[in-house]
């Protein structure tokens, strides 16, 4: 088959390309140039493109660089900044996957005559009765099914995830066997358009005026402290929040940028049992789940899935079977199947309650 492999310059997609070639596919590599600014990590820098190109040369396949910097700015960076400005916490990696890798790149691949697109994500596509299901990667530590949660049948049927059945060590062993210079390259961890040495705050300050806010105990109204950057406070977080007068830990309960106020409370006070879902973002991998279905909900890349009931009463939401720390608006909740916990059934962005 003609396969376009999205090569980030990391070991996973390098090995993905190598394995597809060994399986006899007609493989072409493409690196997406996403971020136009300074970068020190992730999949956007010139040295990453160089690595991807060199891997393609060693594997003996063609390699192209596709420039998506404008689209990345529009669909990923701007919403990220706007979300923070509104006191939300969007996940840029999910948006990048949705709009760029599985949106624009898939469309391009079809126009250019490819039958399949492959990536080096740690997740698997399993075909069952003619339907394609997204399944967690074999390596628990590296599983990336969360960031792919919005894929539907149309995309899944065109997607190959050649390393999803391997653990990271095995991927590196394969990389070394194939003679790829990325075999021992460190994993990327951070958001690719934010310099690790400077962090989110410096990045946001370069884009928007940040807001100082009072940190207020939600029950007593007592001012416990202040923050320079309310935009960086996320509900549920404890870091940066001093304990209350009673000595008990405090957690962020609410971020209100407009009134420059961050409300904090004790763990019991902030726990939630209901998460509203944004209907326009709600995506089911296949059939729509019924109102009342039990699911396993996960709302961070490596979070622990929580049992919940999906509800549709004046809007979609999930009811958690056990209370949990609040989830920031803008984050994604990925729904896994209760009876087969590795299978993704859908995803949605958290809406304001």
């Amino acid at each position, binding site marked *: 088959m003609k396969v376009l492999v999205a090569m980030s310059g990391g070991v996973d997609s390098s090995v993905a390309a190598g394995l597809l070639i060994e399986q006899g596919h007609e493989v072409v590599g493409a690196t997406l*140039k996403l971020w136009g600014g300074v970068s020190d990590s992730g999949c956007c820098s*010139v040295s990453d493109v160089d690595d991807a190109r060199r891997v393609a040369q060693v594997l003996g396949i063609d390699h192209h660089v596709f*420039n998506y910097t404008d689209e990345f700015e529009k669909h990923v960076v701007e919403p990220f900044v706007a979300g923070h400005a509104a006191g939300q916490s969007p996940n840029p990696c999910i948006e990048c996957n949705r709009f760029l890798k599985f949106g624009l790149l898939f469309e391009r691949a079809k126009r250019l005559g490819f039958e399949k697109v492959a990536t080096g994500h740690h997740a698997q596509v399993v075909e069952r009765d003619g339907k394609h299901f997204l399944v967690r990667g074999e390596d628990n530590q590296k599983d990336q099914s969360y960031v792919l949660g919005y894929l539907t049948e149309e995309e899944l049927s065109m997607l190959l995830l050649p390393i999803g059945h391997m653990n990271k060590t095995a991927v590196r062993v394969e990389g070394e066997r194939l003679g790829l210079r990325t075999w021992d390259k460190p994993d990327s961890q951070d958001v690719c358009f934010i310099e690790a040495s400077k962090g989110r705050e410096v990045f946001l300050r370069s884009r928007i005026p940040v807001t100082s806010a009072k940190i207020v105990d939600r029950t007593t109204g007592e001012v416990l402290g202040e923050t320079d950057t309310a935009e960086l406070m996320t509900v549920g977080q404890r870091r940066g929040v001093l304990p209350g007068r009673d000595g008990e830990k405090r957690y962020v309960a609410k971020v209100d940028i407009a009134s420059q106020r961050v409300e904090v409370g004790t763990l019991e006070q902030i726990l939630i049992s209901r998460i509203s879902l944004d209907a326009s973002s709600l995506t089911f991998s296949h059939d729509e789940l019924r109102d009342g279905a039990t699911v396993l909900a996960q709302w961070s890349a490596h979070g622990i899935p929580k049992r919940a009931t999906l509800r549709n009463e004046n809007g979609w939401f999930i009811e958690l079977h056990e209370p949990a720390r609040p989830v920031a608006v803008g984050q994604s909740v990925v729904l896994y199947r209760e009876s087969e916990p590795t299978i993704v059934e859908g995803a949605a962005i958290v809406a304001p309650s």
Partner: protein
Amino acid sequence: MTQLYFDHAASAPRRDEVVAAMEQWQHGVVGNPSGAHRAAREARKAVEDARDEVAAFLGAKPGNVIFTGGGTEACHLAVAGVVNKHRRNNPTTSVVVSKIEHHAVLDCVEMLERDYDNVSVRYVDVDAEGVLDISSLESQLSDDTALVSVMSANNETGVIQPIGAVASAVGGRSVTHTDAVGAAPFIDLVEFTKDIDMISICSHKIGGPVNSGALILRSDISFDAVVPGGGQEKGHRGGTVDVAAAVGLAAAVKATMKDHELTVKRATAYQDQIIAAAKQMKNCEVTSLNAARLPGTVHLTFEGIASDELLFLLDQEGVCASAAASCSSGAAEPSHVLSAMGVPLNKARGSLRLSFGGETKPDEVNALIEILGKVVSRLQA
């Protein structure tokens, strides 16, 4: 698959006579031209013969040819050399460049402005056809202008610039430099650049080796070396002169002069043929159609098509072409040249530059046109 090479403006095919001329300087003992023995003298003679050829290409004095490691270095030496000398002797220094210069010049002036508080850069506009606006140039000149640098022909659009008018406007008040790298394969530089003080050329755009170029001076201009070590090239460019590179450049300019008429005649016919075909294609616009252009370049924009996809499919069919502007990653990027011309982004993003020369065969042009038509309609389907 047959390779159809339409990227001469990136690097022209190496000429056989160049390879033959360089041959003897690439084996065994090649003397250092600065030495004092037989091998050195032989090497020095070859370098000086080469210098004569290059001087003839520009109608300059042989003593005014400085060999460099390519066009970028030649441009950098001219710009940084003149600016550095001026800023050491004056309270302020300005340098005037067109907005459509190659990055060899643009990045150099940006660096100088960044590094020295008393250096400023002034940019000259071009019109919608990509031709330098002389009144804009005049408005940017001032008493502290050390250098005016305007390219002879643009490397993306092929638009020929009014270099003579630039020289008249400057009127000897500042040093003038032209990057003639793109123009060299097609324009008689003796006449065209006769009023310009410094001219940069590059070997591999005219069928010579890469990492080989020259800065040619029309008069005794005083400027700093960028790499002084060793004092070679009359102190303008330190480092052992590469005999093979100099000989290769000389062979390339000699062949370019010999073939000049035929090259222009053939390229013009190909250009007409490609433009006629492009005009039949949907949402295709020929860039700078109303300006004087190099015969060997056709720049097109396809609204609604991404260059990346166009180049990908052309590549699959064996066509080597370019979007003309690319960043260090190799990704096509919106061009500063088209932006200066006011071409909207949705058109600029569908850029295609086809460049060719006297070696290009009629069959290749026919095949290119057929493939381009096929690929464009597929992407527009």
